[in-house]
């Protein structure tokens, strides 16, 4: 009997060394920083703690955690022998939300709730999910996706491949991913977005967006500089200058308040010019390789329009305009103003609106050009 009890006790003791979670607690004050360095395992940070303290537990006794309970709380784990790890190690941390977070998971995912302070979240390859962050945010993973709520301050979000999804940002924002999408809400400041696929931004100040492949869609921006190797560029409203280039895809601006420079290798360009200041710089340079160019201009605009179709379609009209245009004979641009006749459909036309002014250059190698009254 004693032997049986001994065996059971021994087994339980042995078992407990592997399964008993490690508990600990450190006091933490408002505005202090919780620092975690996890060499292995996922980090789960619950920010609904009501006490002014950090509770944490790690569900694997192979991991030894060293806590430093000073003004800031620092939790550091040793790196156990990987061969002895069975299953996923999880760090469960409970903290009040009015702290800053500085979390590093060397090989795991990070999941945090709402935080009033700043947050620095880094992992070498896991996914990162975060609630609302009232302060600044730096969220970096080498591989996984990032999903975060609103950020009150500046935001820097990076992943080498994963998709980035973020809510509104109160400051400036930087987004980088090599193979993922970027989806962001309203950004008060400037944005730099480099993506591997589509980029969607609801609203922002100055936008610089670049993607290797995929569409760029910006709802409303103070200024846009967008470039994609293959995909469309669209904006519902740009309040300042626009520069955009796509190797293949359409460019569409529903409301452009200032000058526009847009080019596409293959695709259509449609620009509705709706200037806030009719006397400002409103030049346009729209170039399509294969595709149509359509521009809507206000009748009060002072402009010198120059439209060229390099390789006209067989029998279709090349340049369609609501304004009177002068056709220019090919090769004789200086003296060659000729009236249209049945043998000649102009492929290069010019027009002066309200005496001329802003230079509007419209060019397509293969397609048609349409100039409409706004």
């Amino acid at each position, binding site marked *: 009997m004693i032997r049986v009890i001994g065996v059971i006790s021994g087994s339980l003791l042995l078992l407990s060394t592997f399964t008993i979670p490690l508990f600990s607690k450190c006091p933490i004050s408002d505005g202090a920083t919780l620092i975690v360095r996890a060499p292995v395992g996922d980090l789960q940070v619950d920010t609904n703690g009501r006490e002014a303290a950090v509770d944490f537990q790690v569900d694997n006794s192979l991991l030894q955690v060293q806590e430093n309970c000073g003004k800031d709380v620092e939790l550091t784990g040793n790196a156990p022998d990987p061969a002895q790890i069975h299953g*996923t190690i999880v760090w469960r941390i409970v903290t009040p939300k009015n702290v800053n977070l500085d979390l590093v998971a060397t090989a795991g995912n990070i999941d945090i709730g709402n935080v009033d302070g700043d947050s620095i979240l880094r992992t*070498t390859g896991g996914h990162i999910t975060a609630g609302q962050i009232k302060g600044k945010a730096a969220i970096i993973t080498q591989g*996984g996706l990032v999903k975060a709520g609103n950020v009150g301050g500046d935001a820097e979000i990076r992943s080498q491949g994963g998709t980035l999804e973020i809510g509104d940002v109160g400051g400036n924002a930087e987004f980088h991913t090599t*193979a993922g999408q970027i989806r962001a809400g309203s950004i008060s400041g400037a944005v730099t977005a480099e993506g*591997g696929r589509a980029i969607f931004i609801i609203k922002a100040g100055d936008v610089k967006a670049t993607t*290797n492949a995929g569409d760029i869609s910006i709802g409303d921006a103070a200024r846009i500089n967008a470039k994609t*190797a293959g*995909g469309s560029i669209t904006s519902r409203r740009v309040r300042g200058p626009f520069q955009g280039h796509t190797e*293949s895809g359409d460019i569409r601006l529903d409301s452009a308040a200032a000058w526009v420079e847009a080019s596409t290798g293959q695709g259509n360009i449609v620009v509705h010019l709706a200037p806030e200041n009719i006397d400002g710089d409103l030049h346009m340079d729209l170039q399509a390789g294969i595709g149509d160019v359509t521009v809507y201009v206000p009748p009060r605009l002072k402009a010198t329009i120059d439209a060229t179709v390099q390789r006209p379609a*067989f029998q279709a009209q090349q340049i369609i305009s609501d304004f009177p245009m002068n056709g220019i004979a090919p090769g004789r641009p200086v003296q060659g103003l000729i009236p249209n006749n049945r043998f000649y459909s102009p492929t290069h036309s010019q027009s002066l609106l309200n005496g001329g002014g802003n230079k509007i250059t419209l060019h397509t190698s293969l397609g048609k050009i349409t100039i409409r009254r706004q």
Partner: protein
Amino acid sequence: MSCKDYQHQITLLLYDELSESIRVELETHLQDCPNCHEAYESEKTMHSVLAEDAARWHDIPSDLLVESRRALADELDRIERKRSWWRVPAFSVVFTPMRLLESVALIAMGLALGVYVSNQRQVSPQIAPNPTQEQISGIPRNGTISNLQIVNADPITGQVELAGEISQPLRFQGKMEDDTVRSLLFSALRDANNPGSRLKAVEVLAQKPTDEMIEEALINALVYDGDAGVRMRAIEALQKFAGEQHVRAAFMHTLGNDTDAGIRVKAIDALMARNSRDVELAKSLEAVTKKDDNPYIRSKVLEFVGTAK
């Protein structure tokens, strides 16, 4: 006909290229002759295997059959030319019913040709349209002509022959099952200069990843596409099939070779989710990722190895 002759006809029978009378004759013979019947069964088995295999030959140029037929026709012409003149029915000394039939047919064809030619000559000035007009009406209005050359211009007849290239905008609608739709999508996947087009093609194809051809196209995109975004989208589409052998092989290739850590992370996550407790896979993963510079991937593999054991 001898058995040897009949056996030569078997292939044509399987390709349904025999005339009705010969087919009936051959089928009757096959019922009576065990040797020829055996030869027929053997040929038929091979034919069905080839037919199954041929269904997977999607990349065969469409003009290959045309070229083959042309080569065959040329060869038959060459053989025909070698035939002695006296074997032409009109000069044949062997007067059989078949020869008589051939001769009658030849005479009838000659007469018909003569009537046709004489009629053509009579009516051609009235019904022949202006060749230039006819050709222009065949060119779409929105087409763009390039590289136009004047091949021939006869000042006497006014006949002009032009050659060039025409391109026109394309808009095509159809279901994913339609061959043309698929061909266009696969064509977009091969557009080396346009990653955006490739990405969109993958996105559309990802809607039907259960289709074998589409699955192969997605695997190709995952393994060979130069754009990380396209590869990532392909792996996202394939991840729920990570339990299938060939998809698994593609994911293993990705783990070992893809330069983008994000895609490797996606591959490892998908493989682990779909193949838990697969000891062999665990060993392979350990070998493939041993030197991976990403600690997350190494750690996940070790975790998987521990769980699988």
